[in-house]
């Protein structure tokens, strides 16, 4: 089968990527150990009251699996040379490397999402059988692994159906198999409604803890005291407040500075940006080009569903949860870089060169900063409690 017949160059290329990625992770573990993110239980195991947490070595393996899947996916999307960019972006930017070294559960979920996408592309490329198995495997594991993914997976499939990205019947058949294999999960949910409710409360914190209702009451009280109760009821009721709050959260999750600056801190303390700033211009150019030229804009639209876990979090932006969306950003950057490189205009060549120079510069600054200051920075933020919640 052709998919297995990967040429020698790509094999060694992937091997190199895995080695470099592992080196970076090892460097970060050495620098940051014993700092780690609080482990998250697998959804199904949690329902059965037998908590299972993904260990660090497994997160490490999944992160490397992500590199390989991204490498294969990008070979499908672009030609051989251009296809090298996407996995390179994945390993050279601090985001996934950082979270892997801190044992993020969402690195594992990213692998499953990528597996599903890989399955779909195989199905579309006429490797129906193996593609179906890969897709169903990814989907089922995703449902069993995380409550948030249990909500999101149907949404992603619906999005794919609505936007007619793949053959309707294929998706229906695959969904059927996923549902069939998920019957034990449904039974577990049915049998343990209290556990389900607890998991829901732990995972979904969108309106928790910020005193929203008390804010509204205070404001309405102040307006009422001076005779503006009516106006206040129109403009400051709980519905408008929640619409505003949710909109703010959504927009913040889609704001470039979230991804390209340390505005939102990685693991709540780091000064490393998730993605190097130099990639901002290729990203913006990529978005522009996607809107203007590419049919991939529909995929981009569906992929926005992947920001939902971050939206459901207590924080405005949760970079840990948002890492499942990272490959979409890397895809857009790759697309932008490719288009910039292909373009013969001097201005775009300059932007390309500027991006490369800035990235190289920031790469060294960031890694030296991690080495010199990240651990003391953590201590200053969290003291000696090494588990980040």
């Amino acid at each position, binding site marked *: 089968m052709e998919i297995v017949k990967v040429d020698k160059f790509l094999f060694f290329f992937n091997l190199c990527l895995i080695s470099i990625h592992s080196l970076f992770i090892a460097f970060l573990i050495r620098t940051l150990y014993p700092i780690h993110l609080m482990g998250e239980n697998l959804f199904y195991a949690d329902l059965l009251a037998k908590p299972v947490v993904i260990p660090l070595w497994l997160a490490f393996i999944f992160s490397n699996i992500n590199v390989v899947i991204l490498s294969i996916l990008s070979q499908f999307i672009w030609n051989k040379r251009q296809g090298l960019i996407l996995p390179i972006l994945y390993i050279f930017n601090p985001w996934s490397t950082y979270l892997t070294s801190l044992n993020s559960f969402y690195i594992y979920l990213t692998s499953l999402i990528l597996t599903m996408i890989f399955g779909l592309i195989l199905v579309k490329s006429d490797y129906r059988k193996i593609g179906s198995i890969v897709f169903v495997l990814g989907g089922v594991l995703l449902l069993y692994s995380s409550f948030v993914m249990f909500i999101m997976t149907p949404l992603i499939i619906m999005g794919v159906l609505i936007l007619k990205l793949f053959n309707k019947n294929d998706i229906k058949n695959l969904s059927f198999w996923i549902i069939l294999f998920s019957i034990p999960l449904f039974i577990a949910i049915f049998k343990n409604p209290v556990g389900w409710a607890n998991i829901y409360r732990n995972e979904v914190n969108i309106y928790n803890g910020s005193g929203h209702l008390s*804010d509204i009451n205070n404001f309405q009280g*102040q307006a009422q005291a001076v005779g*503006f109760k009516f106006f206040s009821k129109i403009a400051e009721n709980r519905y408008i407040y929640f619409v505003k709050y949710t909109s703010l959260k959504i927009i913040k999750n889609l704001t*470039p500075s979230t991804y390209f600056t*340390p*505005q939102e801190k990685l693991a709540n303390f780091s000064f490393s940006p998730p993605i190097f700033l130099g990639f901002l211009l290729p990203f913006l150019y990529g978005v522009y080009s996607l809107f203007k030229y590419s049919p991939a804009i529909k995929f981009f639209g569906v992929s926005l569903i992947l920001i939902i876990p971050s939206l459901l979090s207590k924080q405005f932006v949760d970079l840990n949860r948002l890492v499942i969306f990272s490959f979409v950003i890397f895809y857009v950057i790759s697309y932008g870089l490719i288009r910039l490189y292909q373009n013969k205009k001097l201005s775009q060549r300059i932007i390309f060169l500027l991006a490369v120079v800035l990235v190289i510069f920031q790469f060294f600054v960031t890694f030296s900063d991690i080495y010199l200051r990240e651990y003391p*920075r953590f201590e200053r933020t969290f003291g000696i409690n090494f588990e980040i919640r």
Partner: protein
Amino acid sequence: MINFRNIILLTSIIILGALLRFNNLTNNPPSLNIDEVAYGYSAYSILKTGKDENGQFMPIAFRSIGDYKSPVLIYLLVPSIALFGLNEFGVRFVTALFGVLSIPLIFLLIKTLTNDSKASFIGAALLAISPWHIYYSRFASDHLIGTFFLLLGFIFFYRLIQGFKDYLPAALFLAVSMYSYHSHRLFVPLFIGSTLVLNRKGIKPSSIKTFLIIIIMLILPLIFLTLFGPLNTRAQMVFLVQDIDYTRYVILDHIEKSGEYFLLIFFWIKRFLNYFQVDFLFFNGLNMTNSNILGLGVLHLFELPLLIFGIIHLIRKKFQFRILIILWILLGLIPASLTNNEQSAGRSLLILPALIMVISLGTIYFLQIIRNLTNLFVKTTILCLFTFLIITSLIHAFLVFSVYFPYQQGEAFMEGTKETVLYALENKDNYREIVFDPYRGIKAQNIVSIPYMYLLFYSKYDPAKFQSEKKENQDGAFKFDKFAIRRIDWREDRYQKGVLFIGSPWSLPEKDIKDSEILQKIYLSSGDLAFLIVSPK
């Protein structure tokens, strides 16, 4: 040809803008803040003696309350104070007036740049109801004065680029804008330089040479003061390296020297991009309330879709000055992002006219799209939703300005200080000394007020006397006349008979003071106790 309908429309917009700026001007913001009092007294001092309170004759940089203030607002306040007196209205009148006058200016600017009357009217209307502009028009602020002169200067500067011989007013007003506010000193040269480089083919070199010679001559004293004088100190004080977030969190108080300046570059870029954050722009950029979501951004929430349409319009439609609008926004944020604030609405106010232009163009584009929609249901739904968004945004802004802001932010405007000072002045003769504690705050004693400035202001203290008077500055106390500004230690001060003490409940704990010793309690609009006036018996 004069179109009377247009004149009536523009006049109506200006009247609306004037109402929003002048209505209840003396009571909202609820009190004069420290800078306003300092501006007012410096202007009063100039009016009476030709010198500032430190005895400097007609200075270009006013040393005042530990800072160097720009001169333009202070000199503009002189006639206002001569006319209305040294009071709240006299101090706030000038900025409110310049705020109103900015409305026809933005109309002219958009007309000059786009030759589109509709966009010009929309721009004028948006500036008239802009929360950013109204907020800074309602108290003495050099940000707004600087932006006014910037607008005026740019109108002539663009005309200069278009071939008119307006080099003198262009140079004059741009130079005044540079004297008006610190951000403009960096922005104006950057912007002029970039504009001239980008438009080098279409400009007459002789006009530009004259323009450049005049403006350089005009700003020579400023350059000197900035490079070698007190303004250099001010620049160093507010520069990004002094930022608490940077020193404590990024470089960890110089824990490891290497690479600090490289980190500074990325820290600066982060700060720069912060100004594009949606919460600053649309939710709480003005810091007028305690809540982030129920606050007020520098733009109304309904302007968000219009801004997006405007950006799309700027990308798609090629008109002569679009690059200048983009440059205005990008370069305009450089000075603000180089200072030690997370986001400063005041320091970035100078980009407001450019944003208004983008939003105006976006509005035109949005209306075109709506007009071209054939599906009546979709058209009606979009219009209804958008109208609802406008109405709720405006009601919310109205409530923030008229109710929540004075209620929640009184302390930021030193509410209560005036009452304490008036009490002290009324009862001055009954005490041998009056002690003010400069530290105040409801949640903690974290605000340093400058009571002596309020004393000078509300007593209309003779500037000549103050300039020549011996002022003691010892043991952390500042003394003049009968007044002493120092920390109160009630454990020791409680035994000082014949002295009046004015301080927050932190320094004058109610539980340790007899009821008969408490002469007055001063509350904020929010009902919190701000000050106690006490005399030991």
